[in-house]
């Protein structure tokens, strides 16, 4: 099994027309070529590299991670002599990916990385999540390397980045008993120890994913007598230096592949990342956007797995003399699952492309100043990325839950039994709408984009792209024109809804965000359909669903 090559959509997004630009920016016009044997010479080679690496991720996910998922779910991790011991399958997963040289794939070549862009990074997360959504957290936490790479001093980078590349795992220690969604309330104390020339951490962290990791990024209060986010700094702590106790592991409903720990820091020596006081307001916020996109990728991967389980079961299970996938009501379920997964994925990679391009500009800015056009382009991409990130986190996570729910429904009574994977997927999915910012917090983050008109501007731009594609000539042109007209009608309905919402007594934000999400994803699937007919059915179905949703919200708001 290869979880990359058996899913045509992935290759489709890896070869999206904008990817040539993305890889050219990421490779800084292929400056590494000639210096490193594995650096591409041009955009074609760069995209071939992405394809090869994804194929390897797909192979290991299909042949190692997926077969281990059931035993990992049953065994889970435990604590032994203050060490977190993974389930046997988790260790095997980690070692396979490490030995294949896949950790730290986005790091620069000077730290032995593969210098892959953000899109393949997100894609790897999706592929791995399809195999084991719990393990995807351990994999995803290498995102900490990105933070170190972006913000830490050269000395810290040299010391830690190649360790991550060689498979040392990371954790992001933010949450505390009294600081969950509200991280400004973090109390863990950091004090400067003049004698040992390092910072000392004291306090408790809770719900820390992969808390037994070798390397920890810790949000701590470095400024005495402060109570808000401006008194927090970010620290890098190495478990080998002592001072950390893993007090307990949580007994969770799902994602048993990743341990969740309570940690006690006692005079633990640590080094500061970047500047004092910027811990929360700059570094964690940067990390958080990446983490949200990571959960979106995890959601799409899990939904893909749930859909495939259901589709396979429905094609084999016979009732009333035929397989159940021949019954219209089962087909309805499967079609909706497929539609939601396709739509989330299209939005996921659109967002990832914008992040990819933004990050590359940021990296280029460290070597030279940008031209005015480049600056404008970066700002534009960054603005869209910021708006789409909470939207895709919200929708993909909610829909992954619905898809996992429907997967059990398709399985009938069997799906309620532990023997079938859909049961594990259902439990694993539940956290997706909660961690790295609840669905409600994603709506709060999206409001800025609603008020500032970012989404509508995006949608206008997509409409122009559809128009251009139609003018250039595409297959299924009539169908695409019809769907475009329906989307244009949805925009009008949405605008009326937004205007009416201002007089509403209850908070309309979620209704508005979701309505916009349907239109955004509808356009994205329509644009995909101009390049491949395989997305047409999902596009059509999504528009039907979206029109219904907007009508429902309108009825509610305009009563």
């Amino acid at each position, binding site marked *: 099994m290869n979880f990359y090559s058996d899913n045509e959509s992935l290759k489709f997004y890896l070869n999206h027309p904008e990817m040539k630009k993305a890889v050219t920016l990421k490779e800084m016009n292929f400056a590494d070529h000639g210096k490193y*044997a*594995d650096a*591409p010479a041009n955009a074609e080679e760069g995209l*071939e*590299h992405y394809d*090869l*690496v994804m194929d*390897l991720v797909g*192979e*290991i996910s299909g042949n190692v991670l997926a077969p281990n998922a059931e035993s990992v779910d049953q065994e889970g991790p435990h604590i032994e002599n203050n060490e977190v011991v993974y389930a046997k399958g988790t260790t095997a997963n980690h070692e*396979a990916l490490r*030995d*294949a*040289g*896949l950790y730290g*794939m986005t790091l620069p070549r000077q730290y*032995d990385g*593969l210098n892959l862009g953000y899109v393949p990074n997100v894609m790897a997360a999706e592929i791995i999540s399809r195999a084991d959504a719990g393990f995807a957290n351990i994999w995803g936490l290498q995102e900490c390397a990105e933070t170190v790479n972006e913000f830490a001093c050269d000395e810290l980078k040299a010391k830690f980045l190649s360790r991550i590349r060689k498979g040392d795992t990371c954790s992001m220690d933010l949450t505390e008993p009294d600081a969950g969604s509200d991280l400004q309330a973090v109390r863990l104390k950091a004090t400067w120890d003049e004698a040992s020339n390092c910072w000392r951490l004291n306090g408790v962290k809770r719900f820390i994913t992969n808390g037994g990791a070798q390397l920890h990024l810790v949000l701590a209060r470095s400024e005495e007598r402060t109570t808000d986010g401006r008194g927090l700094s970010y620290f890098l702590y190495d478990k080998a230096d002592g001072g950390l106790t893993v007090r307990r592991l949580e007994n969770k409903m799902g994602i048993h592949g990743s341990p969740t720990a309570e940690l006690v820091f006692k005079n633990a020596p640590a080094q500061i990342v970047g500047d004092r006081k910027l811990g929360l307001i700059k570094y964690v916020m940067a990390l958080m956007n990446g983490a949200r996109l990571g959960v979106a990728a995890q959601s799409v991967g899990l939904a893909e797995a749930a859909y495939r389980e259901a589709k396979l079961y429905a094609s084999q299970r016979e009732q009333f003399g035929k397989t159940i996938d021949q019954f219209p009501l089962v087909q309805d379920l499967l079609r909706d699952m497929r539609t939601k997964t396709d739509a989330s994925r299209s939005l996921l990679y659109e967002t990832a492309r914008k992040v990819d391009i933004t990050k590359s500009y940021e990296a280029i800015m460290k070597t030279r100043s940008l031209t005015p056009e480049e600056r404008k382009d970066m700002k534009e991409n960054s603005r869209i990325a910021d708006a789409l990130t909470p939207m895709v986190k919200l929708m993909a996570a909610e829909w992954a839950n619905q898809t996992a729910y429907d997967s059990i429904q398709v399985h009938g009574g069997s799906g309620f039994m532990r023997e079938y994977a859909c049961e594990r997927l259902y439990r694993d999915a539940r956290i997706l709408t909660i961690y790295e910012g609840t669905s409600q917090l994603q709506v709060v983050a999206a409001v800025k984009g609603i008020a500032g008109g970012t989404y509508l501007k995006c949608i206008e731009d997509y409409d122009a792209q559809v128009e251009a594609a139609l003018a250039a000539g595409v297959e299924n042109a009539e169908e695409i024109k019809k769907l475009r007209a329906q989307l244009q009608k949805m925009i009008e309905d949405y605008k009326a809804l937004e205007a009416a919402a201002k007089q509403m007594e209850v908070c309309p934000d979620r209704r508005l965000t979701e309505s916009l999400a349907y239109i955004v994803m509808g356009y994205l699937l329509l644009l995909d359909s101009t390049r491949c007919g395989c997305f047409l059915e999902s596009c059509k179905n999504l528009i039907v669903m979206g029109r219904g949703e907007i009508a429902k919200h309108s009825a509610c708001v305009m009563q």
Partner: protein
Amino acid sequence: MAKEFQIVVLAKQVPDTHDVGKEAMNADGTVNRAALPTVFNPEDLNALEMALQVRDAIPGAKVFVLSMGPAKAADIIRESLYRGADDGAVLSDRRFAGSDTLATSYALSCAIKKLDNVRLVFCGRQAIDGDTAQVGPQVAEKLNFQQVTYAEKLMGVSEDKLTICRRLEQGIEIVEAPMPLLVTVGGTAPECRFRIANRMLQYYKAVMPSEVKENAEAAEQLWNERPYLKLKEWNADDVNPEMDRLGLNGSATKVKQIENVVLLKKENVNVEPKAEAIEQMWRDLQGVVF
């Protein structure tokens, strides 16, 4: 550090015998190679893994993969490079065509002699397209190397001997063998490690001359710019053989006829070591065969 410690892996590209369809065999009973996709002979991958394990344990040691076959066998060298091999060559020449195990092992032994300081040779126990398990032992004979067959696990590595666990029909046997040494590795040995990402990116464009006859100029340009992308290709003259020991001429086996045999019995029959039981077995066999 060991000075120049060369480990050779013999690897064969074989037809993929999974999902064999009707078109897999020609009317004359030979394999229709064009109809089947090719794969790295599975036990040769086990052999590559064991070689890489020895290499990793001996500082300075290098793994060189040797494959005899048509131009397409360059796949084997690329795949080996992805998984960590240091170098490799394809032994390819029309004059090798029709080789049986005798001629094959002779050609391979000539190629191995071309390399300096070969201390170890690893190969799969047998290839899935012939199942003879003869090539490894014959190469050892021709090189005058010690040999250990059916290896399953590496128990100890030093610079002049290996300790190896062998998988036999009735159990295991642990042996210590001095170098120079040839080891044939069975399918129960550890699976080969995965491809390594950065090596794949480095070598996926590597080609050898006879693969790129149509695009020779573009290939030359590529090789000039990135010399590591030129794979070694040796013909018969390169390995200094006695020409009449190659190919069909050098083969002692003559295939008279190939028959498609369908096995009817699935279970084993136990025969008591008594005269009457053996006579009964003989009668049963005559009944089946004649």
